[in-house]
């Protein structure tokens, strides 16, 4: 099935970055506006899936030379590590810490350990979705 999908491919190349930036925006916005690691992760995988549909499995694999199973593990490690990190400070498991900082460029910003935990969620969601899609897509 050889089809000419130049338009689709060209659009996908540009839209991909838009989606990715939007996903990253959603991820960071999470604590204050709609968004978060889960949606951010899903959207990121959505962007990769778009490339997958526009091109093929091999091209995408070249573009992202990541083993998504490792990404899943890394994400889990981040989440568990953040949760367990509170034990070092002698507070119960899963206690988050946050404060507000005056950063250059950003102005008043809140830094929150929940972000680290959410980063784990973000990575796991990308890892899981892409592992499943790649495995099923490749198995023919």
């Amino acid at each position, binding site marked *: 099935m050889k089809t000419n999908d130049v338009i689709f491919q060209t659009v996908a190349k540009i839209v991909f970055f838009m989606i990715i930036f939007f996903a990253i925006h*959603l991820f960071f*916005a*999470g*604590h*204050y*506006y*709609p*968004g*978060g*690691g*889960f*949606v951010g992760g*899903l*959207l990121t*995988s*959505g962007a990769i*899936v778009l490339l*997958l*549909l526009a091109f093929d499995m091999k091209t995408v694999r070249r573009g992202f030379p990541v083993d998504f*199973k490792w990404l*899943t*593990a890394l*994400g*889990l490690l981040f*989440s*568990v590590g953040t*949760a367990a990190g509170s034990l070092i400070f002698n507070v119960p498991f*899963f206690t*988050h810490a*946050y404060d507000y900082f005056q950063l250059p460029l950003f102005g008043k910003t*809140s830094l*929150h350990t*929940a972000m680290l*935990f*959410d980063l*784990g*969620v973000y990575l*796991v*969601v990308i*890892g*899981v*979705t892409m*592992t*499943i*899609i790649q*495995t*099923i*897509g490749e*198995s*023919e």
Partner: protein
Amino acid sequence: MSLLHWAILAPFIMAVFVPFLRKKAASIHTGWFVLILPVVLFSTFLQYFPVTMNNGSVSETAAWIPSLGIDFTAYVDGLSLLFVLLITGIGALVVLYSIFYLSKTKESLHHFYVYLLMFMGAMLGVVLSDNVITLYMFWEFTSISSFLLIAYWYDRDRSRYGALKSMLITVFGGLMMLGGFLVLSIMGNTFSIRELAAQAPELNDHPLFLLAMILVLLGAFTKSAQFPFYIWLPDAMEAPTPVSAYLHSATMVKAGIYLVARFSPIFAFSGYWFWIVGAVGLFTMAWASFNAVKQTDLKGILAFSTVSQLGLIMSLLGIGAASLHFDALDDNIYTAAVIAAVFHLINHATFKGSLFMVVGIIDHETGTRDIRKLGGLMSLMPITFTLSVIGAFSMAGLPPFNGFLSKEMFLLSMIQLMELNLFNVESWALLFPVLAWVGSVFTFIYSMMIVFKVFTGKFQPEKLDKKPHEAPLGMLISPIVLALLVVVFGLFPNLLSYSLIQPAAAAIVPSIIPPGEQLYVNIYFWHGITPELLMTIGVIIVGLLLYKWLPKWMGVYDYFPGKVTLNHFYNASLYAAERGSNSITNAYMTGFIRSYLVYIFAFFIAALGFTMWAKEAFTFDASAAAPINFYEVALVLVLIAATLTILFAKSRLTSIISLGAVGYTVSLFFVIFRAPDLALTQLVIETVSTALFLLCFYHLPKLSRHEERRRFQVGNAIIAAGVGMIVTLIGISAHSSKFFDSINAYYIENTYTKAGGENMVNVILVDFRGFDTLFEIAVLSVAALGIYGLIKLRLEKGGETNENE
């Protein structure tokens, strides 16, 4: 966590490092590193001697699950210390022996030593736990490590068979024991063995007492290979010989003995205890020794001999229970049985350990353990021969070795039973010494077989794979140490009397010892011409005659038909269980995912529908409902249209797109109801899952609407409608009934002040209910790995890898 706790955990911690040692220091045999641990532990525990010798004890508690009353309490008294020294002492010797037994290059040593260390830690945990739940946990650890060690050479069929058998039987017993512990804890309202023992008189009158006792004894009997559970031990001999010497003769199988001894203060006053433990032990002793004679494999002989000796110790513990019914210490002849049990326990560990190692040497140097192929090795392996003479003569109960002393005490105890006026013993009294004597005769015969069939007679080099020669010195050290102990304990038994035996025996029958006093232990050779000496002489004479005429009466074993043996029963029931479960499973596992969906949804309807009906849970209350607007009506219409399209679409692609439309419409609902987070998530999920569907699309068979029968379609329609109805009813009821105050006020108040966030949904996800999220992503990861495994590691059809064949 005290030193004691760390001592129990040390082997587990060490086990973690073994694979690294194996990898990083491959030029040094891993055993040398492992050897350090039991030696250190042994010397550490020696410092408890001064405490236990005065019948004192040490106990350290670390809270484990305080809310359930489960503590990790380590408790050292005479009995525990005796076992700890056996575990670490024999452990050190076995590790030393294994260094020379297992090849550095050919064997996967890291597996071996990880399992062995796991076992050592588990065994220490068993004998040092005061809490029955921790005891149970460690107990099962010993079963698991034993399973792994028996299956160490897992490419052999017999190894796997033996491992499975031992696992099934001992874990069955372990579960029974857990039940017994729970019953005990219900009766006594505590998990602590000492606290249970303190309430022994009240427990004795409890209606559940007998149940608890039988359950606990099932655990002990399976572990200690008592009749009829002994059948796993001979098959466990497939393990490497150091393992057989360690687990299946010196320590693990004695865990059952330990359990009986440890629970004696609780149960032993009862007549049932006396009868069950005494009779089962004695019968096992006679039966197993009778069966040992017909074995041709040296390790088979030793396996049955171990069963028999364990029965001997068990019976002594049972008979020792009679001592509780007599007050005075001085003329309480039944305490002698308890003392004999402890003494024989030590002796058995020494002579049986050395014999196992000797057999290992023979196997290693000649390539066979079959006594029909062996013979005339005396001049070739003089040291091994000497060691086997010491071990076997001690086992047979010949002077001047330690086995003679404890055997005499055993026979004496059995004779004294005839004077007992308790538990209706009178009518059966004669049976005890007779069985004991018969068992001893066969013990004598197989002991002689081990020595003379192997080392004397005709040398048959043509039947051997290797040219036999004496073992290397390293392999001889451990059996030499044990054989020396056999001789030393034989000549100077009173070295042990008040250091090890008295404290251990006192822990078994603590109630009859007045505070500050001790049991009287004096072991010596010459008692004059006593009945037990005459019995021993009888054993030797009859034994020698029977040994000489062995070929003439070996035929009696043929009278035991193979169909009624316990092994046959085990195999048949295992086979029946496998076939039965196989046919049940095949009956409903059709291989079609739609059948499984039918099961799941049918169950869903039945369970939820029944609950709604039984609890009268359906309520309808529209008073809190919001008015319905134009947008919602429009969306519902779109939703219905899209759903109907799925059902009646001609092509699969249309169905998939319509399904996506359903999802997008739902997310529009979320937008209308002002849940942006949900809407966003639903949108993206819908997109990704539609893409996934399109990926799978190629794999699906061509869609055809007419191949299915009407009945099938009607059934599916009913189930689909049922699910829809139930969910709708639940939704309406959930909306209409408010049993609890909503928790949302809490979140509104605290989201900013406590968690520093403004998006409540996200704060709940990452903070308030972060645990949920953590487990959810864990489940997701497992699912991804599962799918990966299912698709990538698919077994070839009809390949040899199919495990069900």
